[in-house]
């Protein structure tokens, strides 16, 4: 029976079957936890993508509070072939928000599973449920004066460690590569089994959050950016709060400086002199984060001309590139490293160093320093006011941490964005060897023509970058199938073989990272 045109149903599921499943969900979870009315589902359907909301409309949303309930949900889904899209806090915004990948999928919202199960301040780790937010953790740490600090992405206070880590997100502290800091997860599989990774399967073990690898195959990574299970607990390491924290900014005036910046930074990152995930933000990323608006400078449609950007730099003191980093440790350690860092920039002969004392409460320095020291804030949401209109899709190719490569990517991205009348609003997040080149493709969703341009632009970015051997590390739900193709057929075959083995009914998040038994055809 074809999908009804006046109601939202999961693909291939008829109304009668859906109703039966909903009734079982109500018995399992309670009526209050099964949302099917339009005004209950509308908040789950706010998207920032270049398609109509209808393409990502859920048919229902469920909230669970226990692992047993999650097991019950997958059992019912198997019985009625209902696809579910699981979210923890659902706050990955430009990567897809809380809305499902495909119209009609039932959202399983784990926001009520929000217990901080344990924080061990000797071993410096936490074990949490998926609904726990960084804000909640931060409050807990502050209220109890615990000697640890958090690492989080920019939506910090309202996002959560489980969702961010499972999507392989990054933060801005020395623990900024979040999946690397993950240690031990509990996963409900599609058949209802509860699988604990690492040391978690050993009865009475106290090393689940201590030793990642366990014995035999280590499968943690398999559950990230994937649809093989539902994570119901996750452990991660916490950084001991350092006695001294010294954030700083280095401002560069020319776009071409990116080559020297990156080549200077790489050895400092590799040696651990600068231990945190450094950010190099473009002028427009800075401008948005400082809550400037494009309309303050120009109202003509299309991309913002370089002359206007130069004027903004002149007016605000922002650079073409704005590097944020920090030093951590004892005063002696910080002093030594500060000398190494400042000497390196002096030798370069470019870049104006700004310390916290000089910056004071000025934005964006203040929020950057907070993010690098584990203090949550929501300052970066100002990006959404830069152009306005509610469209935001993050294009995030990976680059070598090599100056010439970063410059090449920046030039390519800017050219393609400008061709489509959009702005290059970007930051590089610097690891020792790689760069996450994060570009916020901002557009006006009320403008159908601009929305089409944004969609075409995103496709062209993917295509052109792929031709040069680049691919994104993460993408929003609109483009997951497209990006999966960039990684080649063998990888996709393996992923689908695993999917068939673990979830033969294809109930868990079909379409996640392009993994979908209903649509995938072996090449």
């Amino acid at each position: 029976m074809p999908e009804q045109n006046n109601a939202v149903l999961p693909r291939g599921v008829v109304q009668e079957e859906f109703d039966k499943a909903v009734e079982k969900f109500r018995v399992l979870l309670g009526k209050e936890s099964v949302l099917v009315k339009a005004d209950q589902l509308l908040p789950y359907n706010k998207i920032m993508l270049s398609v109509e909301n209808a393409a990502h409309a859920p048919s229902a949303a469920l909230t669970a509070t226990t692992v047993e309930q999650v097991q019950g949900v997958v059992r019912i889904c198997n019985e009625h072939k209902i696809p579910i899209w699981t979210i923890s806090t659902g706050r990955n915004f430009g990567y897809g928000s809380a809305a499902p990948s495909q119209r009609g999928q039932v959202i399983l919202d784990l926001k009520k599973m929000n217990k901080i199960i344990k924080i061990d301040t000797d071993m410096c780790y936490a074990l949490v449920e998926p609904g726990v937010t960084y804000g909640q953790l931060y409050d807990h740490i502050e209220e109890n004066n615990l000697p640890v600090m958090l690492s989080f992405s920019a939506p910090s206070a309202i996002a959560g460690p489980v969702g961010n880590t499972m999507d392989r997100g990054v933060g801005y502290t020395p623990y900024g590569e979040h999946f690397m800091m993950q240690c031990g997860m509990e996963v409900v599989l599609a058949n209802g089994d509860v699988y604990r990774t690492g040391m978690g399967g050993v009865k009475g073990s106290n090393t689940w959050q201590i030793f990642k690898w366990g014995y035999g195959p280590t499968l943690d990574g398999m559950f990230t950016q994937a649809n093989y299970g539902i994570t119901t607990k996750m452990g991660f390491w916490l950084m001991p709060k350092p006695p001294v924290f010294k954030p700083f900014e280095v401002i560069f005036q020319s776009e071409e400086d990116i080559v020297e910046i990156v080549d200077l930074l790489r050895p400092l990152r590799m040696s651990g002199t600068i231990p945190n995930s450094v950010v190099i933000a473009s002028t427009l990323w800075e401008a948005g984060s400082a809550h400037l608006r494009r309309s303050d400078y120009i109202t003509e449609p299309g991309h913002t001309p370089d002359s206007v950007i130069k004027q903004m730099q002149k007016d605000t003191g922002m650079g073409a590139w704005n590097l944020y980093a920090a030093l951590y440790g004892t005063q002696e350690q910080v002093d030594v490293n500060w000398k190494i860092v400042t000497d390196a920039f002096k030798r370069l002969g470019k870049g104006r160093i700004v310390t916290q004392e000089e910056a004071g409460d000025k934005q964006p320095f203040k929020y950057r320093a907070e993010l690098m020291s584990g203090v949550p804030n929501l300052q970066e949401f100002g990006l959404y006011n830069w152009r306005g209109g509610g469209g935001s899709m993050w294009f995030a190719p990976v680059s070598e941490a090599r100056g010439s490569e970063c410059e090449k990517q920046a030039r390519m991205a800017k050219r393609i964005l400008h061709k489509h009348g959009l702005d290059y609003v970007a930051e590089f997040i610097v690891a020792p060897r790689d760069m996450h080149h994060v570009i916020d493709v901002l557009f006006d969703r009320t403008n159908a023509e601009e929305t089409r341009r944004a969609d075409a632009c995103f496709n062209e970015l993917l295509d052109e970058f792929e031709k040069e051997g680049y691919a994104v590390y993460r993408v929003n739900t609109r483009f997951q199938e497209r990006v999966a193709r960039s990684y080649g057929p063998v990888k996709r075959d393996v992923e689908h073989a695993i999917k068939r083995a673990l979830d033969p009914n294809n109930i868990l998040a079909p379409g996640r990272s392009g993994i979908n038994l209903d649509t995938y055809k072996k090449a």
Partner: protein
Amino acid sequence: MSVNRRFVLKSMALGSIAGVTMGSAVRALAAGTAAPSATAAARPVLALANEGAAQSIFLYGALAAGGPRLQVQRVGCDPGFMLDFERQLRSRQPMRVIGLLDDASAALLVDIARSGGARMQWLGQHTVEAAFSRHHLLDTDSAEGCSQQFSRQLQACGAGFSLNEERQNGPIGPRRMSGPSRSAGQSAQWASSIGYLLASLGTRTTLTAPLAPVASTPITGSFVSFSIEA
């Protein structure tokens, strides 16, 4: 008359909405509005707005419909406010929240509403340029009257517009409407109309939104309107 939002807020704080801020036109509207339904009347309406002329005009319309039930709160991207708002929603105290915010504040607030378990009848994205406005609505059947009246009022005010409406749990294709620009005099009327219609949602009102005061400078920009029920 040029609208000054501080004046509006200050006046409302004094608790003399119609008398002080908007004069006899609003009093007449309030008197002419049919009695609200019991459920809607029981709920206080909180209007959230940030600084700006469009927001002032939105409040002007909201005040005309909401009268003394309406409370106003200023909003910014402040984590403290957002988390308090979430706690408030989770307390399950019956409450209706309407608002007109900038994109950044709205992105946060709407998501907080979701995690707070609130219901939402209306989510509007509005872009306003000189003498032309574009509107994308995501709404529910309960806001059917609002969207229809909104499009009529856009037609009537004479500024060019385009309107796309998607209905939650509705068909895949959106409903599209548009109107040519005939005059720019009432180009800010859309904000007053939305304020009025959202404050009236759930009540039986047949009147149209009050004519927005003419702004001293063109009101342009990007805005998000919403109606949330806890």
